[in-house]
């Protein structure tokens, strides 16, 4: 199960498992984001390379206009994936404990 939506503050909230089957849903949603955007990952349980690709593609598109994705409340497992992938050098990431 995966879900993605805006919260009342305008942040994107993702929850569940962002795998290859769900990546098109995430990409379709994030394609509508046109400006600086916070992605709250407190309820995201899992991400695979398909999900990483969605984040990377969106981040690169926003950076053209000097905007970006900022990832917050990232749990330790997903933060490990970000570190292995080098995403910690590409994104501003706030872990759940920081």
């Amino acid at each position, binding site marked *: 199960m995966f879900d993605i939506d805006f919260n009342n503050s305008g942040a994107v909230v993702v929850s569940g498992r962002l795998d290859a*089957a769900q990546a098109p849903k995430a990409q379709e949603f994030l394609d509508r984001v046109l400006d600086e955007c916070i992605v709250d990952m407190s309820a995201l349980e899992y991400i*695979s*390379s*398909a999900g*990483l*690709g969605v984040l990377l*593609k969106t981040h*690169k598109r926003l950076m053209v206009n000097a905007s970006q994705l900022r990832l917050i409340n990232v749990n330790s497992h997903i933060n490990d*994936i970000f570190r292995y992938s080098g995403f910690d*050098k590409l994104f501003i990431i706030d872990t759940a404990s920081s």
Partner: protein
Amino acid sequence: MRKRYKRSFEEIQKIVADTEQFFAQDNIDESLRMKVDLSLEELFVNMVTYNTETICEILIEMKPIDNGIEVSLTDHDVNRFDPTASGQVDVDAPLADRTPGGLGLYLVLKMADSINYEYHGRTSKITFTNKVAEADV
């Protein structure tokens, strides 16, 4: 556990459910779940995406080993593709040079404690293991 899955990303949900059940039944350490789920998905997706010359279902087998789990994926009537010989990604490259492709197998090689590839009679079999670190046992 020994089950066959259709060549569709929609099967990932079933694989996750079957993995969860196997971990519970065989008392596999839950700390290995994320790594196993990730490697299983990446290898399965790779087979579905690139082994398009076959219509055979993909066989997934799991068995407990000392302090861990051994998982294999078998794909029939396919060309040779050794995932252990790929996975070179420059994770230090700047954003402009990064592309979404290639990360999956790179992550598998990072996550697995061991990985082995066999190819006989147009059948590919990839086996990987994940173990709890000795300090955590």
